[in-house]
């Protein structure tokens, strides 16, 4: 089962394009960084979008190996609930400890489930991930006395480097931590894709037989990428949980996993920048569509994705790059 990311494979960039892309990325990051000052009311929304973008990056990693998981909200929820339980056990816990614990929990869950699901491909891989996330969802939903049941658990504000911050300062710290995570984990993922391990992982998409005949177990190669995807989803989960202040079983619901795949393809399947662009678009449409067009944000997004799939399979990032190349070309000819 191959996927669209073949189309997203960066062709040999036209002259000047890598500079253009770097410039565009820097501009975008600068714009994001200015949000708390330029548009403070949007800070929470952008922060949630960044958290979702981190998780979507996890799904994008798997798309690069031609695999789609419909259950990665599992790691999103494991990390968020891990953070919530940690705060309940250690009330004064620090934000960074929460992040590390949540991500570690998600990666461990990724190992336990991964050892099982890496034996499968295609629809079975997708559905098995779904099954595990639904098992976790029903545990969260039904074991009320342990997990707080359907109402979820509160995730009170953690301390930052030992300091007890007020709400405004804390949210600013969280916002810039999210941007730092986007840059750090984004850079790592892009480099990892180009690294030997990342390249071996991506060969699962085109020829597992040859991979076996290179002396590499395809399952172990897939597991390496699977763990990274669980880690990224975990990071997103912790940030979302802390930003929201409450974690609910909804975090592990299958539609949230479907959303992540949706956003990955909308933004640009296989592209790290695409994951964040997709997440930002998704959150904006979800929040502001209902302001203009009543409660039809789902229909708008569904229609938007259909247009993308039918006419621009390389997603929004594909469109942006095409425009970038066209302006680059028109400059050359002038």
């Amino acid at each position, binding site marked *: 089962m191959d996927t669209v990311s073949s189309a997203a494979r960066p062709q040999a960039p036209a002259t000047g394009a890598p500079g253009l892309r770097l410039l565009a990325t820097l501009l975008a990051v600068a714009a994001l960084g200015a949000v708390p000052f330029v548009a403070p009311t949007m800070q929470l929304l952008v922060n949630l979008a960044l958290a979702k973008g981190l998780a979507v990056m996890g799904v994008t990693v798997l798309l690069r190996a031609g695999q789609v998981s419909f259950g990665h909200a599992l790691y999103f929820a494991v990390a968020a609930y891990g953070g919530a339980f940690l705060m309940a056990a250690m009330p004064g816990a620090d934000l960074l400890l929460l992040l590390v614990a949540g991500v570690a929990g998600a990666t461990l869950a990724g190992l336990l489930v991964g050892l099982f699901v890496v034996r499968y491909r295609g629809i079975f891989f997708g559905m098995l991930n779904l099954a595990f996330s639904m098992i976790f969802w029903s545990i969260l939903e039904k074991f009320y006395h342990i997990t707080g049941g359907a109402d979820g658990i509160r995730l009170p504000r953690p301390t930052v480097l030992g300091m007890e911050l007020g709400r405004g300062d804390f949210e600013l710290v969280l916002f810039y931590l999210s941007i730092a995570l986007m840059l750090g984990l984004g850079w790592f993922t892009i480099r990892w894709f180009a690294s030997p391990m990342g390249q071996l992982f991506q060969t699962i998409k085109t020829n597992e*037989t040859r991979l076996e005949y290179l002396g590499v177990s395809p399952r172990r190669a897939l597991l390496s990428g699977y763990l990274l995807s669980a880690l990224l989803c975990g990071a997103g989960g912790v940030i979302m949980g802390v930003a929201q202040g409450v974690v609910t079983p909804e975090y592990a619901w299958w539609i949230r996993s479907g959303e992540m795949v949706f956003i990955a393809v909308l933004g640009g399947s296989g592209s790290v920048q695409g994951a964040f662009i997709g997440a930002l678009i998704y959150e904006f449409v979800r929040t502001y569509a209902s302001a203009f067009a009543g409660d039809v944000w789902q229909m708008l997004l569904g229609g938007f994705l*259909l247009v993308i799939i039918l006419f621009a399979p390389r997603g929004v990032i594909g469109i942006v790059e095409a425009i970038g190349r066209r302006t680059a070309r028109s400059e050359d000819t002038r």
Partner: protein
Amino acid sequence: MNLTIFVLALFDGIAYAALVFIVALGLTLIFGVMRILNVAHGSLYAIGAYATVSLTGAFLAMGFAPVFAFPLMLVSAILVGVLLGGPIEWLLLRRIYDKPEVLQLLVTFAVFMILEDVQRLAWGSQPYFQAAALQALGNVTLFGVTYTVYQLILLPAVALTLLLGLRFFLRRTVIGKLILATTEDREAAQSIGIDADKVFLLTFIVGAALAGLGGALASPTTSILPGMGADMIVLSFAVVATAGLGQIEGAALTALLIGLGRSFAVYVWPETAVLVPYLIMVLVLLVRPEGLFGSPAARKI
């Protein structure tokens, strides 16, 4: 776990399994032929339920007898199949057969999101309750427990008829053979003159109609409210994957397995009732990676 409890769990399980099977049947048929896991199946199920409740309500208001609810169920199923199933395949899916599997899946996910809002715009968000068909058949008491004839007898009977009917249709009729041929090998089928496009359109309409029928049959047993599609479809995924993708007979057995599993869980350890179907799915796929009835595709080099 005395005998009566065992029998009660059995009856509840069968009634629930019948419904789950009818919905999973359409999903399995579509996947078997078109290799597409139709996420929008859940919305078609819900719209089938809404349509039945509206039609039945209107007919009852005009003074028709409750027994009319049954033919109306078929009408809503056909409406869902033709008015929704047809355009989805013809306008959307037809354009992406060459595209990677994840995109086909996502197109149906996008359609699912669109139809969820269409439901809310058309029928609002408050719950509907229309049990005329169920009440028309009355109750039966077994072991001191009163069951509705509708749930205990009608639903399993319809499920069985659909299973045998579909098997007969696929194996004995010309169109059925065409569909089977296209399932085996689409290129080969086209090379001998089978119009695969027509077969796909027909298959999707039948599959969508089955989803609508599932919703129609479920409508008297439950209150119709937004989100019912999402709950049922995720369960159908479990049934279809456990059976082995595209295996119709397999879907019947796994629906029974999951229906009984869930119902026994309610009696033994209620908290796990929601968990059991997915646990069964994981355990089965652990033992048989291609699903109960799936056949492992030999990897040729």
